[in-house]
């Protein structure tokens, strides 16, 4: 029994029953399939996060974001005072997270590709694009660049899903896709 020491002095050489050998083989094959799915998707799939990232100070990132917002602002979002920004397709698009908002609101075009930059000015935040359910961690002092291609027109919410203090549950942003 498993609660007593093995009775045989040498148990390593005891033959293994064939059901077990079969199962170990099948499981190993499945393990390898799952492993190679990841590089395979990098080659053929359309959803891979880039590894492009930079160290950056909060001030420098805020400046870049504000510059873009001033350049491409089209209106304000309701009475929130937050600008809605419609940068041209293919351009660098900046969004920042801070206690407790995503800034600014973006307006993108379906089927077009953008270089979306993400960073935080204070604590860690979770960029959760809904209802797509695309989730990316946002750090202060690091700028992550993700190339995104929105699929369908509509209004998308960005919920913060990394706990960021007392107002965490009010941190919601928006992306419009035309």
């Amino acid at each position: 029994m498993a609660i007593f020491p093995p009775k045989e002095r040498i148990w390593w050489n005891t033959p293994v029953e064939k059901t077990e050998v079969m199962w170990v083989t099948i499981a190993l094959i499945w393990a390898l399939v799952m492993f190679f799915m990841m590089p395979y998707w990098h080659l053929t799939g359309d959803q891979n996060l880039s590894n492009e990232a930079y160290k950056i100070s909060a001030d420098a990132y805020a400046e870049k974001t504000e510059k873009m917002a001033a350049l491409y602002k089209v209106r304000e979002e309701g009475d929130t005072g937050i600008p809605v920004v419609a940068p041209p397709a293919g351009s660098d698009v900046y969004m920042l997270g801070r206690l407790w908002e995503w800034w600014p609101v973006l307006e993108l075009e379906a089927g077009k590709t953008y270089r979306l930059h993400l960073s935080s000015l204070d604590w860690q935040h979770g960029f959760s694009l809904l209802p797509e359910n695309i989730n990316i961690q946002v750090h202060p002092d690091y700028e992550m660049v993700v190339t995104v291609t929105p699929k369908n027109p509509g209004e998308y919410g960005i919920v913060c899903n990394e706990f960021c203090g007392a107002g965490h549950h009010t941190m919601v942003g928006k992306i419009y896709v035309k």
Partner: protein
Amino acid sequence: MSNDFRTCPDTGFKIHLPADKLIKWNAVTAIVFLLIGGIFGLLVALTRWPAVHILPPDLFYLALTAHGLDVLLVWVIFFEIALLYFTSAVLLNARLVGPKLGWLAYVLMLGGALMTNVAVLRGDSSVMFTSYVPMQAAPDFYLGIILFAVGALIGCGLFFATIIVAKKERTYEGSIPLVTFGALTAAIIAVFTILAGAAILVPTLFWSMGLIAHIDTLMYKVVWWAMGHSSQQINVAAHIAVWYAIAAILFGAKPLSEKVSRFAFLLYILFLQLASAHHLLVEPGLSSEYKIFNTSYALYLAVLASMIHGLTVPGAVEAAQRKKGFNKGLFEWLRKAPWGNPVFSGFAMSVVFFGFLGGISGVMMGTEQLNIIIHNTIYVPGHFHATVVTGTTLAFMALSYWLVPTLWQKELFLPGIAKWQPYLFGIGMALVSTFMMGAGTLGVPRRHWDISFADAAMGFDFPAAAYLMMGLNGISAIVAALGAMIFIINMVGTLLLGKDKVPAAAAPEEPVAPAAPPASAATSYGSAGTMEVPGTFVLALIFLVSFILYYFVNWKYLASVWGLS
């Protein structure tokens, strides 16, 4: 020295009295923290039930922090320290080396756990279990965890010392028992966990005291998860050791193959801890090579190990049952198993839920790209409630139904209701996991007070199904909490009010807590040899098919979202 020992009337083990006492105190303390953590957990679930929404936001985040710490660290690790002493000193018929250090470990762990709890309850340290910088808790929050970890490290040290000294003093011959080997695996992972924890929490403590100016958020996360995730891998190794122990205790089951089972544990020792990278798959700046290698435990070799245990544990039971004559068809051995015995029912559900719910979901969301559609949603707690609660906690409960009456030599306080308890708790918790995972696929965030965003400037409308599932989650949590409460009452009642056990030989009929198999069966040992386990193989294939289907369904789902590159 021999008068430091007593002989267990049920099992024949020679039990070192100082070890006996330490095992009991650590196990009881564990159960007390299960109660405390469980109450916080119930409050969390009731707050996340939108129609009930019982706590205000500050108390919700406070309760969630306390819940995570008390059950993910304190409950399981106290119980695991008891298991380490049991699997070394008791199973090897040896003395526990350094019982005084064992008490030091106990005091440090208890003191640390209380200190951190006080810091959290004070309200200035609601930083969640993960305490991601630059969010800052009070210094005693970190200090408490550090003291707890130092205590646990001493406990691990005593385990290593005990098995080494037992070998020298020749209390056993040859290799350590497989169950002790599983516990050794858990202890090794624990040492890594604690060292990593020290490496990150000591600087964080200094930072909270103002002695260090800055802690890099990404580096914190890499090192913190070497502790945070590995601490849960201790549970995996420990509860699989418990599975083997229960199969042996209930059925006299022999491992199908010592070689295969121990090799599977070796794969854990080598690779299980790499899965800490599961938490870093959508972080900036880490390369795909790093993510893929680590998140897959190096080619999924630790998953291979889990799948091996998933066959060999029930396989050992099947072999033992067939030997007893339950040989009809594929599943007579399973049908005629003691489903009314909480040791068995808890064990069986632990194996099934850990594999089907916890294992499959864990591998799926630990896939580099698939993590994008899962990260930080409530799917994640759904997954780890399946692993840590229906897997680990249920296995520990099942073992307690045997261990507590045996160690204390008491009859179970409420044997009738004990038959139902594992079902109540296990199925309740399996539903909790399922509903959380369901809500997570709809994007419901974890650690979130209000998914209706009533106070927010902008909102997002979750579909009605998300609300429904969070409600069902709350109801299931009540069922599970009831099950946990019955367990705790039964255990505490057995200690305080349980009748002294009638010596096993004179027991009138089969007790609910099973007596150990007769000593004659206990002495024979060996691999099950040519015994075939077709029933288990069929079950394993069903598992594999579910695994493959679920895995690829999620790839299909991923393919439907926005392009990312």
